């Protein structure tokens, strides 16, 4: 995988703006709820196609998303 994101489940308020922002639809709203009662966003990338474009993190009002990308060697 070129990129991946880590979502802080406890900071997330389930606004789902990242879900709309992801061009590859790799984020879903989870079934579980966090300690505040929100359904946090969840990164689902079984095929490993995330490019680390950061559009999700740009959109996130809670700064709950960290984005990683493979270093070009």
């Amino acid at each position, binding site marked *: 995988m070129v*990129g991946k994101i880590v979502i802080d489940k406890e900071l997330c308020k389930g606004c789902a703006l990242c879900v709309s922002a992801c061009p590859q639809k790799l984020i879903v709203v989870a079934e579980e709820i966090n300690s*505040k009662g*929100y359904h946090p966003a969840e990164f689902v990338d079984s095929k490993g196609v995330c490019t680390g474009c*950061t559009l999700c993190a740009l959109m996130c*009002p*809670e700064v709950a998303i*960290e984005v990683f*990308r493979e*270093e070009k060697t």
Partner: protein
Amino acid sequence: MMKVVFERPKSMFPVPTHYCPGCGHGIVHRLLAEVIDEFGIRERVIGVAPVGCAVLIYNYINCDMYEAAHGRAPAIATGCKRVHPDLILFTYQGDGDLASIGTAEIIHAANRGENITVLFLNNAIYGMTGGQMAPTTILGQRTTTCPLGRSPKRDGYPIRIAEMLATLEGATYIARVAVHNPRAIIAAKKALKKAFEFQINGLGFSLVEFLSPCPTGWGMPPAEATKWVEENMIPTFPLGEFKVPKSEKG
């Protein structure tokens, strides 16, 4: 080897915020913190917090800060900047704070060309107090104090702050941006960075108006609220740079 390409800016405290899900404040706070980090000015920055949803901005941004009375942030910033001309001053204000009670203060701070940067968050409503009409509420928009929709006869028209302030000779940089999608957010950050750069270079007064969603106040889920910014706010409040320093003009 994976490296971090996006993380929380250092100038932001790593705490959850009190803002509603999908609120634009979180995005603008982050842009502000990123700009402060990128210019390396956290130890030289003094902020002035408003009365409104962002009254607690000082819980999120790690720099010296004042808590202002409603609308008076530009006056407080003026007092501080006159004492410390080499420090970087910003005010962060909503539509009640800046466009209602604080109209005199913002106009005159701009008119005097105070070398400060104003972040004006326009969500066409009074969020903190429960969703009343703001001077920026658009025609036909329903709020708790115009339940049948804003009508020109009863309530007047929405105020376009960016255009108004751009008529003042004392103003150096006036821009309106939005934070309803990633592309807009990238452009918003560019404008904010410019604004701070102009202040750092002593060029005078800068203001960036951020069109922002207020899902709770507007009574719609976050995704719908971002659409509402696009379809309803931008036609009333066009995006763009309304004033740039002479050195920028062609």
